[in-house]
């Protein structure tokens, strides 16, 4: 396969990319001087992909199956697992499942080619049996129970359940103990063959590696499929309003905490348009709720929020939600003050000089991220599936103005919001 080269002077980075004959896109970011080499092989298939069409047939899979498959792919034909192979080649392997993708990765300092060979071969060779599926049901049940005891995770999932009626982003990534009990080896093979298609995957390699070795190993392990990738994901009719305005739970925690979540109904963007939306959202959240923001400082001084206060954003082409979260002694009072603060920010708008300062800091942080190979690689992989390029952010920052941010702020903070609360168990 042939690689093209893109040099980004401002970042001092070069990116190689090419498309393999199988349809797999391959990216290599050389990092001279680093011992660490890193590869992540990802598939656009996550916890939300439980309902889809193949031809005319609608398929509905149990919740948590993408995560289950991630665990099970480590099994090797004839017994043993991929960790054993990585142990031999000195690779430190891992994998993760998110709402919209699954990533298989390793880092190593020596024997990069052998490690990459292991990664590409085990992901391309599924091996599921009655026994190994049963064994995993026990392990994953423990993982689910671990998250059941994690108040932050519960609070976040409750917020998604409150915001969404039908979009499967409201379901726990790992599913439930009951849903994973429905999974069997036939179902795993079926979804593997459906989604683990080179045209629906990407390989990203970073480190001081030889690009022709990468190409050879892809040739060796990744085969062109006879049928092109042809899954149609189910479109969910998601009402504009939230499902529940408020969701209140109790756990053994030190004090009450909350998530105030906003849901946007204008979704469907991809590529640079989606990236722009993400970046504008990030800037606005920092301008209102970071330690360098007047509103944050005011709320902090009034004792309405503490150091745990933060924000987050969950975005894709089918959902876009923004979250403000933290501990609060009186959640109603804090939420009211936050909403009032947002309303006055909408009236006042942003000052040009502030916007420029936030942009300067944001670009600085992005450049700094290139010191961490895995952070760059993981971010790149999730962006790739939405058609976003590694260096696209550099051309978007200069076009963001205070007027654009004001408009975007009106979209984010709309009337479709919900509050998820976690209170200490009454003793």
């Amino acid at each position: 396969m042939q690689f093209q080269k893109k040099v980004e002077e401002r970042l001092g980075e070069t990116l190689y990319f090419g498309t393999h004959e199988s349809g797999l896109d391959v990216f290599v970011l050389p990092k001279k001087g680093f011992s660490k080499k890193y590869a992540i092989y990802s598939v656009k298939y996550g916890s939300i992909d439980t309902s889809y069409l193949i031809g005319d047939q609608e398929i509905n899979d149990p919740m948590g199956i993408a995560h289950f498959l991630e665990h099970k792919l480590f099994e090797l034909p004839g017994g043993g697992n991929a960790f054993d192979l990585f142990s031999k080649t000195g690779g430190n392997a891992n994998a993760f499942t998110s709402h919209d993708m699954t990533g298989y990765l390793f880092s190593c300092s020596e024997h990069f080619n052998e490690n990459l060979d292991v990664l590409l071969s085990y992901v391309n060779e599924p091996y599921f049996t009655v026994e190994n599926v049963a064994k995993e049901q026990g392990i994953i049940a423990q993982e689910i129970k671990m998250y059941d005891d994690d108040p932050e995770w519960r609070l976040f999932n409750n917020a998604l359940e409150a915001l969404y009626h039908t979009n499967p982003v409201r379901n726990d990534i790992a599913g439930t103990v009951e849903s994973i009990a429905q999974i069997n080896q036939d179902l795993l093979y079926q979804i593997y063959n459906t989604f683990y298609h080179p045209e629906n995957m990407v390989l990203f390699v970073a480190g001081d590696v030889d690009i022709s070795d990468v190409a050879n190993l892809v040739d060796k392990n990744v085969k062109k499929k006879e049928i092109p990738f042809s899954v149609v994901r189910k479109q969910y009719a998601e009402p504009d309003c939230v499902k529940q305005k408020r969701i209140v739970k109790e756990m053994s925690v030190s004090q009450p905490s909350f998530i105030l979540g906003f849901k946007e109904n204008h979704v469907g963007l991809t590529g640079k348009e989606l990236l722009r939306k993400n970046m504008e959202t990030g800037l606005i959240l920092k301008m209102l709720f970071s330690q360098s923001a007047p509103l944050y400082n005011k709320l902090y001084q009034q004792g309405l929020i503490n150091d745990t206060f933060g924000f987050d954003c969950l975005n894709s082409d089918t959902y876009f939600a923004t979250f403000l979260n933290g501990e609060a002694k009186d959640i109603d009072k804090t939420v009211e003050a936050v909403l009032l603060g947002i309303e006055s920010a909408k009236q006042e708008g942003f000052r040009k000089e502030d916007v420029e300062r936030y942009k300067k800091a944001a670009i600085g942080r992005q450049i700094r991220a290139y010191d961490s190979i895995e952070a760059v690689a993981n971010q790149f992989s999730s962006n790739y599936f939405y058609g976003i390029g590694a260096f696209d952010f550099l051309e978007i920052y200069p076009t963001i103005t205070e007027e654009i941010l004001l408009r975007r702020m009106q979209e984010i903070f709309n009337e479709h919001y919900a509050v998820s609360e976690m209170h200490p168990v009454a003793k």
Partner: protein
Amino acid sequence: MIATIPAPGGFKRIQNNAEIYVLPADKFKTFSVSFHFFTELHENTVTKNALFPFLLKLGSEKYPDMLSVNQKLQELYGGVFDVRVAKRGDLHLLSFVFEFLRPEYSDAEQMENCLGFMKEMLTNPLVKDGGFSEEFVNREKENLTDYINGIINDKREYTNLRLVEEMFRGDSYALYEYGKVADLEHISAKDLYESYREVMKTAPLKIFISGNLEEERFFDTFSALLEEERKPLPQNAIYDKNLSVPNKVEENENLVQGKFALGFQTGIAPDAEDYYALNLLNSVFGSGPHSKLFMNVREKMSLCYYVYSRLNRLKGTMQVGIGTDKENFKKAYDAILEQLELCKKGEISDEEIAFSKKFIVGILKQTADNQHNLADFYLTGILAGRPLSPEEYIEKIEALTKEDLVRVAQDITLQTEYYLS
């Protein structure tokens, strides 16, 4: 007295018990400076010393509130200023960590501006009537209270902390690094300023500089701090073999999944040659997906999602953590101790040793790819009395044999059990 001598990874300059380690590296987009002050971990000072460092983040004379500090960091291209407090053996470590983009990625004045900012935040705090700002102090007391009370929210970490408390009952190491809520009401803004001055003027100080900072400019900028007459690091403050009486503690928080932790004494001092064998044995036993605990307790027996062992080098202990259903506590406990017994009996395969060596060597080789990890690695080595470079450490690991592992396994004894359900 100033002496500059070669040191692993670069060189060090020693000046009145302040040591500056310079670790040159060209590959990063940033440069980083971390200041580490060491104080004795003691119940009378732990809360004050945990509190005052965070006041420095809230403002200085020149940047008198959190807003102006953070806006200045933005102007420095999104610079980072972090405060950390930690326990290292029986020392209380107060760290101030800075990281900034290099001039090549920002502007020609960046180095000078960043040095000025670091000096301002560290040495020119906002002081009123001989104390820190009351407003800052009250706010930080509330934050610290919320933080300490919030330990319970992370059940996994809470289990580990409770084990340490039980294991070291009566020893200063049982203290939590963030101190005690009950102390806060008796601490005044003046007390905190006194603690700050005491630490800045007398506490042993180690500084790590990496990623192409011009060190001469650094020495000039911080000449006053470097000229103070500092105390040497307290001797024998790290390793203490005498733990509390073996103990078993069970508590209930109505968890969905039970968690427990086991504390072991290893009998191996941090500077012992056998420490490297213990490090390798720990990986065979419970660190990494090739380990006996992962392969058996998780993969074969399906009892858990996570199980691991880790070492506390400076205290000579090993800790095992696991999350599993409470009805399986006994089964999991037996399985963990059985795997340790196999290590003691020498039932360790060549493959297990080879995998564990690769696992540790891989991590060591990548240490220098992160400026903070590298500084941390050296700091632990220095405190342990064995300041090796990653390369020297690798040689020690590679040279080990099965006999070394079996030898160090013999003295590992279970000391405390903590169960949360």
